[in-house]
């Protein structure tokens, strides 16, 4: 079977047959794990300052993640889904968007929200179970993290339809994982986007595990990108440890969406180094060997090597950003902790625009 570069649609290869063909695919890559440019044609057009900014964000995000784990152990954060290993898909995909593009995240996708404009202390408040965490500032185009796996896929579909109806040159992007691609809402969203030709990017961060269930048990499909075929939309697979490949794929999908070309499903092959949440034990479902294999592909190491060769980054830069990130996290967690506590009366008043009489009555018990 011929190899098909997955930066093109997966459909329409091979001879005509009554049987749908599922050809092999190879993920889009710009940098090798050694930081060598292997695909110059797909190198995104980025200035040196932009390249440094992307590295800054990835180092910052990993440091924030490490600090968040500690804050969780200290009881200063609540539910937290670690992100280390997925910096390229998270930071890269957001970086490829315009600020007026709209993000519908899953629960792990806090970095995309923060880099799109959500203040970090609000991300911490969300984790701490405070309503202000979801009170997205005006002008920041994101929804709150979604807990029901796949529900956000349909919201992005509706938001994309809204952009299309208003003739706005914007795209909606939504994130889920390999597990999320098994949900009914995933298929419904892709199918609607195909049918209405909507400017939506469905980004699946395939990190190999849905909590503990491995990808091999998740689907018999050859890849998640192949699932685009049935919906009649573009399907793309990208090396999710290569931030430049991620940026290239998302920029292309966004461009196509803004110009009326419809939706793209992007599968980013990545790995989460840490557990699904603070509560599971990775040694029960994956091997040290596998973890070591993925750490060789590390997105920060790879992109760092590339930048070092260009004279744009050094270990001192990494140390400086880490320090800055630690300080910012400390300051922002303090701000979160100092935020006025929620009240039951406030909860009652946020059910409806106008609190109806029965809730007014119930509120009286909590004042």
């Amino acid at each position, binding site marked *: 079977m011929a190899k098909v570069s997955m930066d093109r649609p997966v459909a329409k290869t091979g001879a005509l047959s009554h049987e749908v063909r599922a050809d092999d695919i190879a993920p889009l890559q710009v940098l090798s794990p050694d930081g060598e440019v292997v695909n110059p044609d797909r190198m995104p057009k980025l200035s040196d300052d932009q390249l440094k900014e992307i590295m800054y964000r990835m180092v910052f995000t990993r440091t924030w993640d490490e600090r968040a784990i500690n804050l969780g152990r200290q009881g200063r954060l609540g539910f937290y889904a670690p992100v280390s290993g997925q910096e390229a898909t998270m930071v890269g995909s957001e970086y490829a968007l315009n600020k007026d593009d709209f993000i*519908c995240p899953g629960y792990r996708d806090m970095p995309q929200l923060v880099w799109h404009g959500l203040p970090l202390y609000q991300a911490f408040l969300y984790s701490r179970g405070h309503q202000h965490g979801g009170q997205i500032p005006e002008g920041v185009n994101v*929804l709150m993290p979604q807990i029901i796996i796949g*529900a956000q896929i349909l919201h992005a579909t*509706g938001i*994309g339809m*809204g952009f299309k109806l208003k003739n706005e040159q914007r795209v909606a992007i939504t994130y889920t994982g390999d597990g999320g691609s098994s949900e009914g809402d995933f298929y419904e969203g892709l199918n609607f986007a195909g049918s209405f030709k909507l400017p939506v990017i469905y980004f699946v961060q395939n990190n190999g595990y849905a909590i503990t269930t491995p990808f091999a048990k998740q689907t018999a499909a050859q890849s998640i990108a192949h699932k685009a075929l049935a919906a009649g939309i573009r399907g793309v697979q990208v090396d999710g440890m290569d931030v430049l490949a991620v940026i290239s794929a998302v920029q292309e999908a966004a461009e196509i969406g803004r110009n009326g070309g419809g939706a793209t499903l992007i599968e980013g092959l990545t790995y989460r180094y840490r557990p699904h949440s603070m509560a599971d034990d990775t040694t029960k479902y994956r091997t040290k060997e596998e973890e070591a294999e993925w750490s060789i592909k590390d997105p920060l190491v790879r992109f760092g090597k590339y930048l070092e060769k260009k004279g744009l980054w050094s270990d001192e830069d990494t140390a400086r950003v880490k320090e800055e990130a630690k300080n910012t996290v400390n300051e922002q967690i303090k701000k979160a902790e100092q935020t006025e506590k929620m009240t039951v009366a406030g909860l009652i008043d946020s059910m409806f625009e106008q609190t109806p009489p029965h809730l007014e009555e119930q509120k009286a018990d909590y004042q």
Partner: protein
Amino acid sequence: MAQMNMKEAIRDAMRVELKRDPSVLVFGEDVGHVGGVFRATEGLQGEFGETRVFDTPLAESAIGGLAVGLSTQGFRPVAEIQFVGFIFEALDQMFVQAARMRYRSGGRYHAPIVFRTPFGGGVKAAELHTDSLEGLAVQTPGIKVVIPSNPYDAKGLLISAIRDNDPVFFMEHLNLYHAFRDEVPEGDYTVPIGKAKVVREGKDVTIIAYGLMVHTAMKAAEELEKAGVQAEVIDLRSLVPLDIDTIVASIQKTNRAIVVQEAQKSAGVAAEVIAQINEKAILHLEAPVLRCAPPDTVYPFAQIEDQWLPNAARIVKTVNQVLEF
């Protein structure tokens, strides 16, 4: 004034709002080109175009999710779920995503969505077309629940629902679509959500009902009249918010009440109404408030649905139990 049946009044409400407010969209399975399986949206696509009134692929969760996404971008979706049983496919989007949007975002977003669905028994429909699932919605915080019993209210309530900045579950009884015609004003008027209506005055007993059961209760009241019993009949119209004040005012006068519902007996709207009567009017009661409702079974196949559903005779029997207590 025009004479309209309830279906035509519902269609007219959508027409008024589509014309008045460019952010209103109407969509669902088969609602566009043909105008819905009951033709409730007939002609609207022709009048307002395919970008305002459109058919969707067949997927109820996506219809709900599309509505939620659109509502965050300033649209007011009127999303039709073709038959009531199909809401099970859309419950997350309706009862979680839409109903919690205002709370989860601290008011940054809200979900001004109307989920319209036909429901209700007595028409020999296929399975899962006629269940009374309002109880599920009534127990769900953050969504209003409205059930009209006549064309005038249907139009005024639907206009209110479309203008409401919170999600509304708008349930349309199948057996009322073509049942009778009413004087319905042309153009714009509203019936407020959260206000019940006394549709028959009486001093001896209060019959509380909604949807088709209002008419069944009226028949029962006529029967009772022959026996010298003056029954007051209340049409709830909105189940959330529930107008308990109108109920209490009536019970203060009659001291006796029953609640009629097409939904299975336990843990439903009737149970909630009775709980609130206990909280607010127990000293005015001369007898326990009883429920006239079907047994706690699945909605039956068509062959026995007429025996299963409440009818005038059962309502009279229940009233007599509270009168003779």
